[in-house]
């Protein structure tokens, strides 16, 4: 049991750092500008991130599994550790980083170490989605901006009432954002452990609870722990420094980026679209930070294209390449160390 927990710990650590960093994308502006209390944000965020992970986490996880199915628990531990270290290191260097990009690099590192082929169609699908994510988020924010502006001018409600509605909406949209984050990003945290899940399927109150879902619950708890213990600082930074948005614009940003994360995570939406002969969205873990940046740019464009920092876009696209390469290298080295120094089989 202890060994099992130890081997899962790297994934849990990755989940913790995801919660600490990415919850700020959802509640950062609201908490940083004191529109909602941190306590409210932490409670709502934790509950919905766990729900999202357990209910809708399977889709994006499957895609990661196709990229490379890590088939030994020590291997999965090392892959998640490499991803976590990359995130930690790049955060220290103040470089934009996403757990999604880092875990993909680490999985490819494992494929190379285990001498197994990487599924290039999955890889192409994943990378295309990364590029699509901020673009789609910008488009959504652009559209939502005009809808909201029209709606607010039509509502004709007093500023006091509008503020009350905005607050309520920030909590509701925040809940949706947390759900989407859990659904889309749990794959990064627990995905590599799914093929070798140590848990068994069980039934509680006639609800089937798969072994993967138990992993997701554990990962969701780790994300929630990150939100509760460490995200406050990040939120206060985001809210007061990074981008100054009006409350309604902040709402649009969270809604647009959450919608994108949801699109790339929801199997039921995919099924619904497919059953109507519509094109579906690939289920791929994406970066919530990049979705937010995309949405902020979308708002900038809607306001007439002034004050847009295009350098930040360049930085992001560099990250698409450097993050996976870094984590791939770290994974390769660590796998070598674990196998030869600690004498644990990292692949079968």
């Amino acid at each position, binding site marked *: 049991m202890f060994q099992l927990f130890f081997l899962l710990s790297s994934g849990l650590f990755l989940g913790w750092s995801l919660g600490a960093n990415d919850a700020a994308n959802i509640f950062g502006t609201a908490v940083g500008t004191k529109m909602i209390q941190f306590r409210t944000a932490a409670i709502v965020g934790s509950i919905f991130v766990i729900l999202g992970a357990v209910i809708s986490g399977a889709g994006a996880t499957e895609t990661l599994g196709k990229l490379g199915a890590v088939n030994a628990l020590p291997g999965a531990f090392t892959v998640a550790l490499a991803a976590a270290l990359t995130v930690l290191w790049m955060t220290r260097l103040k470089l934009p980083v996403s757990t999604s990009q880092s875990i993909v690099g680490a999985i490819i590192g494992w494929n190379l170490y285990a001498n197994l082929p990487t599924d290039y169609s999955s890889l192409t699908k994943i990378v295309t989605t990364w590029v699509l994510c901020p673009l789609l988020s910008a488009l959504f924010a652009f559209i939502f901006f005009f809808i909201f502006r029209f709606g607010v001018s039509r509502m*004709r409600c007093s*500023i006091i009432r509008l503020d009350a509605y905005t607050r309520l909406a920030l909590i509701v949209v925040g809940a949706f954002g947390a759900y989407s984050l859990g659904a889309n990003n749990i794959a990064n945290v627990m995905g590599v452990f799914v093929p070798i899940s140590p848990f068994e399927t069980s039934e509680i109150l006639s609800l089937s609870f798969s072994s993967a879902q138990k992993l997701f619950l554990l990962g969701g708890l780790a994300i929630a722990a990150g939100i509760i213990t460490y995200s406050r600082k990040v939120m206060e930074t985001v809210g007061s420094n990074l981008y100054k948005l009006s409350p309604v614009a902040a709402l649009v940003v969270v809604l647009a980026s959450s919608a994108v994360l949801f699109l790339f995570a929801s199997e039921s939406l995919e099924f619904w679209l497919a059953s109507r002969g519509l094109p579906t969205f690939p289920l791929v873990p994406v970066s919530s930070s990049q979705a937010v940046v995309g949405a902020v740019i979308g708002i900038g464009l809607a306001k007439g294209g002034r004050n847009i920092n295009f350098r930040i876009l360049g930085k992001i696209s560099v990250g698409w390449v450097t993050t996976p390469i870094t984590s791939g290298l770290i994974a390769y080295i660590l796998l070598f160390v674990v196998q030869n120094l600690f004498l644990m089989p990292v692949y079968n």
Partner: protein
Amino acid sequence: MSILFGKAKNIEAEIEQFFDKISEAGLIFSAGIKDYLEGDFEQFHSRIDDINKQEGEADNLRREIRYYLYTKMLIPESRGDVLGLLETSDNVIDTTKTVLSHFDIENPTIPDSLNSEFLKLTESAVSALSSLVKANRAFFKNSNIIHDYIHKVHFHEHEADRIEEKLKKIIFRSDDISSLAEKLQLRDFVTYISSLADDAEDVAERLSVYSIKRSI
């Protein structure tokens, strides 16, 4: 949340009442000046009592509103703005009260020949005030008409400035007013009345910034 919306209704009513007080103070002010110029001092003194009452009630309302806004209602970004707006609007009431009490204390002698210009000045200053009240209401209702009213405040303030300058010239060139002391005193009274329009314009300036800030 339902408590919150119930309170919102309450606070909205209180804000409306606060603006009613400002509007009423403007009307009393204008009537008071007219009474003074017509020599109806008994009526004038009752106007002073009225305006003191309005000012006191407005203060109480402002305090209640401030308490609610800070403890329960507005998102912090708007709080400072809204409070600043209420405080500066309150200055306008204070000015109406102060000017009338100056008349009461100093009892300036205003030659009949200047009556009509003094009335015009008062009318312009009070028009600036009442346009400001409308702009304030529009701001709280989140309405676009606010810009029309802000424009009107500016217009009336300019008009008051123009009359102020003209009146001062007449005062200093007039042979009816013999002593320099009287001229200086009358000049001050012209400035007092005109300052009401200036106060209104100050609030209008704030309002136009806030309304831009609030547009998404």
